[in-house]
């Protein structure tokens, strides 16, 4: 045993959560530090997912990277090809932890695993997009059933409008629900090569899929003043618009479930549902969102021991349950979920409804279109798309040509990425 006053091995963990969620991460870190005497994890919020990725890259270039970094879904391929990490499996094996890798929901794990199924990073705060309804408003407007399809949503919106609600549904230009989740549940590809899983030569194809129909539908709804754009730039984002009851429906991450519950005034009835599909569509599973934890290469051995201990620690069922309780994130392992279900977590408010996310994620087996997205520079692609959406919904740009152009630009980015990593193989 180590002497009582031995130096603890310190290592860093950078994450992208801020506000309430950020504090929960700090709490998790504290729990870990309190649980043992050998390691000390230093957890730092970088303010946001994108800055975490930026800062991690800059730090890695400068050889000052943290041991663990929380990287969002969009940065997955960038990480994979970077060679800048220690694969999850290897890390745990090297440090003598036995992990039941199959325990992870495949719908989640696949996003972060190689084609061969080997998990590279640790799913941590996983989410998916859901739709939020203000049930009190629904009642007032005479909407009785929770909408299942976009047609239902349109119907409900009309009634809300008729009942005097200025903003039945709020939406913004976030491609995550609009493009990524929509494509998955409608079984539409986002890119060739199985959304990029099969090779770096993938090309974006959303300009030829039902995504266009969705955009047209939204446009029509917007023209009828049923769907309303809500963004920071306009003064209020979608979720605040929902929680302030300015708007009665919105799409967002299940991660916001906690915040929404806390923010809406007492007595307002609300609910979440799986993202709607178009009528007649056979619904597929949705994509996992949120972020996973990457262990970065190039740190001293001792830090890896600590990192492994930490990752193991937060994967324990009680930690998983705690994490899912205090945030809206879903448990990432089957045992974790089962345990929570068993002790009735999902039955009572305020947690009721969160199971919808698991349901949505596990609805079908992962397929080429629902497994995940494996595209380089995906941050930039999202930006291209959301800029296009902005042009369409704010400035009446033509839908098809605008998306065509965004796709073309995204593909240029993909080609540059391919060239940058010329010779690299996706495994």
């Amino acid at each position: 045993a180590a002497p009582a006053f031995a130096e603890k091995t310190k290592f860093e963990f950078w994450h992208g959560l801020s506000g309430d969620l950020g504090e929960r991460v700090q709490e998790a870190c504290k729990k870990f530090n309190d649980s043992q005497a050998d390691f000390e994890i230093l957890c730092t919020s970088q303010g946001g997912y994108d800055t975490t990725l930026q800062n991690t890259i800059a730090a890695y270039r400068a050889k000052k990277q943290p041991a663990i970094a929380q990287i969002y879904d969009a940065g997955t391929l960038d990480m994979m090809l970077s060679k800048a990490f220690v694969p999850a499996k290897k890390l745990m094996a090297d440090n003598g932890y036995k992990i039941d890798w199959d325990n992870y929901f495949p719908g989640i794990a696949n996003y972060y695993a190689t084609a061969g199924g080997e998990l590279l990073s640790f799913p941590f705060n996983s989410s998916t997009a859901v739709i939020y309804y203000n049930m009190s408003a629904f009642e007032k407007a005479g909407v009785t059933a929770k909408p299942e399809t976009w047609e239902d949503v349109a119907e409900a919106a009309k009634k809300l409008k008729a009942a005097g609600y200025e903003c039945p549904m709020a939406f913004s230009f976030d491609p995550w629900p609009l493009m990524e989740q929509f494509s998955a549940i409608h079984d539409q590809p986002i890119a060739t090569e199985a959304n990029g899983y099969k090779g770096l030569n993938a090309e974006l194809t959303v300009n030829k899929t039902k995504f266009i129909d969705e955009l047209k539908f939204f446009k029509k709804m917007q023209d009828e003043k049923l769907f309303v754009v809500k963004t920071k730039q306009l003064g209020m984002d979608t979720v605040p618009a929902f929680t302030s009851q300015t708007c009665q429906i919105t799409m967002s991450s299940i991660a916001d479930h906690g915040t929404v519950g806390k923010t809406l005034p007492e007595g307002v009835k609300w609910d979440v549902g799986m993202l709607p599909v178009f009528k007649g569509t056979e619904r597929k599973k949705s994509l996992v969102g949120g972020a996973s934890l990457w262990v970065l290469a190039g740190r001293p051995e001792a830090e890896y021991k600590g990192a492994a201990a930490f990752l193991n620690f937060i994967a324990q069922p009680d930690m998983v349950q705690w994490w899912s309780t205090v945030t809206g994130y879903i448990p990432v392992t089957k045992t974790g979920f089962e345990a929570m279900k068993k002790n009735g977590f999902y039955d009572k408010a305020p947690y009721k409804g969160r199971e919808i996310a698991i349901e949505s994620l596990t609805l079908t087996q992962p397929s080429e279109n629902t497994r995940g997205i494996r595209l380089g520079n995906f941050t930039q692609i999202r930006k291209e798309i959301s800029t296009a959406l902005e042009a369409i919904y704010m400035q009446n740009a033509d839908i098809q040509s605008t998306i065509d152009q965004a796709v073309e630009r995204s593909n240029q980015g993909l080609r540059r990425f391919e060239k940058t990593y010329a010779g690299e193989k996706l495994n």
Partner: protein
Amino acid sequence: MIQRTPFADALTYGLMILGFLLLIGPFVVVIAGASQSLQQVNAVPFRFMPGTHFLENASAAWTRGDLGHAMVNSLIMATLVTVGKVALSACTAFAIVFFRSPLKHLFFWTVFITLMLPLEVRVVPTYAVAADMFTPFRLLIQFLTGIEIKVEWNLLNSYAGLVLPLIATATGTFLYRQFFMTLPDELAEAARMDGSGPVRFFFDMLVPLSRTNILALTTIMFVYGWNQYLWPLLMVTDPSYKTMMMQLRALLPAENGIPDWNVTLAGSLIIMLPPVLVVAILQRWFVRGLVASEK
């Protein structure tokens, strides 16, 4: 002058008041918003009357942004940038102006060119340098001697890292150069006749005479240092080094939370305050120093 110009006078006052509304109006709005309650600040239309909630909002902002901590860092950073800049640029300008040396033009241009490229544009490689200050030297030594050296000096998450790259620009050097050029030649000559060497001359004459310039530069550099945004955002990953400007983001209403702009505004008011105070206090010298140098 005997002038009966009621029209021109009225116009003058009109313009000055308009200027006041344009330039100071935003402060008024911010102050009003920062002192209102959540309901008031979100009321449409906005009311310009300050409310009574300022302290409450300010303390909420103070906690949310951990501003106490950030304030100390920002003060340290801005002060160090100011002091470093004021001192180093005076030295360089002295070298450039008061010596007949073949190197002076080289020095001059080396420094001058830095005016053309803002930190924003070279921030990534600058980060790499800050992470390992000795890289260039190591590479040079390795190139010259073939010996690989292992020393490293990392400036990330340190005051040195916050400060040094910001000192590496030319603004101050210019201010001093322009000023030194306006000093009469006889001053240095009289000092020489009196037996003073260059170093003595620098400390006995130039430094005391540059007081106005020093104050002008102090003002500019404090504002510049305090207002740095991108560099700390990138460079600081350790929260114990975060600055006020970095915390600006933390003060924005949470992405999906309550639009508590009153807290945000109170916070940004706190963040704006120190440089505004510095400018207000030093403005007389600031103006004189600046203008003298540019003329």
